[in-house]
Structures are given as C-alpha cells and as structure tokens.
C-alpha cells in the first residue's frame, strides 16, 4: 500500500520514530496546557448566565472531542492490523484504548460536575453525556475483549474487529441519541451546554478553548506514544536492538 508506511510495520522502526517525535509533542503540549489553564481559568471573563462554573468546558470539551477522535484512531490502527497484518498497528490499538477510555471518563466526570452547581443534579441524561457513556462502554468492550484472550495476538485481532464494528456504529449511535434527546424534554442543562458550544460562543472564551483542545490532543498523544513504545519494548525485549537501546550487553547467540 502506501510505501512510506511499510518500514514502520516493524516495531523497531516505529520505536525510534516515536522517540524522535516525543519531545515535539511533549514540550508544546505542556506549554499549551499551562497557557490554556491560565487563560481559561483566570483570564477569560465569567459567563453572563453561569458565572464561573462554565470554565469546566476547557477540560470537558477537549476531552469529549478527543475521546471520539482517539476511538477513530484506534479503529484505524485495528484496520491496519487486520487487513495488512501490521504488528505495530496491533500495539498501537492497545496503546490508544486506555487513554481514550480515560478521556471519555474525564468528559463524563466533568460533564457531571458541570450540572451540579447549577441545577443540583449530579447526572443528566442529555445527549452528550449519554453518548459519552455509550462510548465508554465501547472502549471498555475493546479492552475487556483483548484481556479475555489467553493468546495475546488473537486478542489483539478480536479487539481490532470489535473496534471497527464500533467505529461504524458511532455515527449511528450519536445520531440516534441526539434524536432521542430532542424527542424527550429539553432540559435547561442541555440547552445551556449546546449554547456554549455553538459557533456564537464569545471570542474571549473561544480562543482559550481552542488552545485547550490542541493542548489536550498533544498531551494525550504523548501518553499514547509512551505506552506504544513501552509495549514495543516489552515485546521485543529479546531482540538485540532492544537490548542495545537499554544498554544491556548483547550476548552472541548461535541462531542469529
């Protein structure tokens, strides 16, 4: 297929590539996170309706966005693993899943926190939270399926199939949940959340939001990359390149 992708089918090549890319994600990620937090929490003006508590969107919205984005990335990794038998893609899927699940959980947690001070309820079945909850189950299913297999490679293949089935269903689930929500009573929480995410959001709030979105992506990507490299190292530990990287002297073996 794409020729440039081929060398990275070997875990070793990917490992070194990821090592090189890591600082480019980590440093901007940390800086932008700091910027986004300060800007969003301290500098941006309070909302005319919700006061200070709206500020949680700077964590909630990026987490929600990327929880979905990472699922798609995970499904793409699954596709590469299944169709082109790329070993590294299997490891990528395993690296992404927990990070995506945590992002989903964060979006759920912050979404719940958001509703509490305003309307005195810790949970609301609005479209976004419901869809995120289902997404969390999708992530958990992929992870649970992988763990249930004794043969780790079979588990990775099964998880890939499930991730692909899930990704096809996500648009359908989203559409149906949002539709379901409009069908039943529209709560003020829903309308408030929707309004803040609408294009008419004030620039004073929009810019820090954009920064936090990028920051969240970079930091989450760093976590995925680190996990991926750990997995690669763990599986390749008996190979000479891995031993060399770790500074362990390579004992010459007859077979190689």
């Amino acid at each position, binding site marked *: 297929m794409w020729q440039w992708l081929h060398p990275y089918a070997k875990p070793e090549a990917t490992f070194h590539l990821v090592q090189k890319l890591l600082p480019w994600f980590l440093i901007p990620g940390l800086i932008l996170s700091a910027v986004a937090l300060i800007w969003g929490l301290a500098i941006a003006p309070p909302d005319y309706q919700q006061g200070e508590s709206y500020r949680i969107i700077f964590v909630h919205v990026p987490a929600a966005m990327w929880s979905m984005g990472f699922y798609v990335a995970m499904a793409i990794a699954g596709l590469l693993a299944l169709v082109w038998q790329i070993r590294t893609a299997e490891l990528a899927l395993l690296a992404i899943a927990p990070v995506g699940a945590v992002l989903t959980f964060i979006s759920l947690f912050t979404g719940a926190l958001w509703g509490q001070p305003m309307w005195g309820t810790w949970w609301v079945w609005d479209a976004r939270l419901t869809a995120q909850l289902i997404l969390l189950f999708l992530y958990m299913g992929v992870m649970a399926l992988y763990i249930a297999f004794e*043969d*780790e*490679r079979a588990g990775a293949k099964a998880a890939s199939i499930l991730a692909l089935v899930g990704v096809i269903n996500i648009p359908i689930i989203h559409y149906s949940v949002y539709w379901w929500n409009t069908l039943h009573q529209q709560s003020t929480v829903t309308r408030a959340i929707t309004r803040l995410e609408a294009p008419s959001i004030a620039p004073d709030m929009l810019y820090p939001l954009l920064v936090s979105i990028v920051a969240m992506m970079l930091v989450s990507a760093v976590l995925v990359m680190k996990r991926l490299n750990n997995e690669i190292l763990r*599986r390749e530990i008996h190979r000479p390149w891995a031993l060399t990287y770790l500074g362990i002297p390579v004992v010459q073996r007859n077979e190689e």
Partner: protein
Amino acid sequence: MLLQGRELQSVRGERVLFSNINLDVASGQLWQIEGPNGAGKSSLLRILAGLLPAQQGDVLFQGEVIQQCREVYYHDLLFIGHKSGIKPELTAIENLEFYAAVEGHEFSTPPYDLLAQVGLVGLEDIPAQRLSAGQQRRIALARLWFSQTRLWILDEPFTALDVDGIAMLHDRFQAHLAQGGAIILTSHQDLHSMSYPVHRLQLRYQH
C-alpha cells in the same frame, strides 16, 4: 502434485513452532507428520487445511495458493481434527446424512453398512451424546467410506479404534490411495509395517 507446503512457519504466542517446512504431496501418497508432543503437528495440519494462517509461507493446492482457490480446494478436502464435528443431539445416521448432503451425495438407503465398517452396529439411531467419545469419533471416520474428496487430512485417526477397526481403516486408506487419493495424517500408531509406502515429515520441538 496435489498439495504443497512452501517454507511454512507457525508461531504460537511468542514461540516459533516450526520454520521452513516444505511438503509435496502427490496423488497416491500417504504422509505421516511425526514429532514429539507440542512440536506443532496439529498446527501444521490445520495450516495445510487452511484453518490456521501460517506466519510465513504458502500452501498450494494443484499449484494455486489456497487463499485464491478456497472453494475448489475444499471441494476436494476432508479434514478431521481433534474434535469430531459430530452433533451430539443427532443420531449417527443423521450426522452422516448431513455430511453426505453437503458433498452432494444422497444415501439411497440409510448408511447402516457404513457404520458397521467402523463398528457401530446397533448404535446408529440413538443420539450421539449417548455414545462414548471414542464412538463419536468413529462416526466422523465413517465419512471416509462415502466421501469422494481426494485429499484427506486426519489428526490421529486411529485413536478410539480397536484392532479390527484399525485394520479396516488401513484397508480404506489403501483403497483410497490406489484410486489416486492422498492422505496426510498424524498418528502415534506404528505405520512401518503397512502394505503401502509411508512418507514421513519430522517436526522437531523448538525451544
């Protein structure tokens, strides 16, 4: 040349079972895959049957990679692995009727004589779950007496057979080979003193 294996490698978990295995099976040949337990004999049979993908290498049926000619290959293949493939809720006759029907073969009369060949007289019409495991395996073996496939891949076909049964199976093998069929099998039985030549492939246990 009926079936060929080219540089087959199998990996289970992190362990390489075998590497660079080559096999050429022609009409009229019987091949025995030998090796200690855990050496990958069953995995090799499953790879040859197309059930398990090989880590590396190809299996060719009549010169074509089996992934490309799957239906043609399976039209001519009979595989009996560790599990018999017999539904316990159905009788021996009903089980055989299914396997005959999917080969396009209709029994004109219920196959009592077939089941007699494998020593199941009087047990043909009761649900297979009331038979012993060995007897259930013999129902599966009865397929060898009506199947018109040319290639047989059999994992331990002699287990669960008594002396008469073993002799009958040898006769059946001989007839099959004489008609141009081929057989690949594993067995703990001693096949040295047979009236047909036995080709051997040795798998060594890899650490």
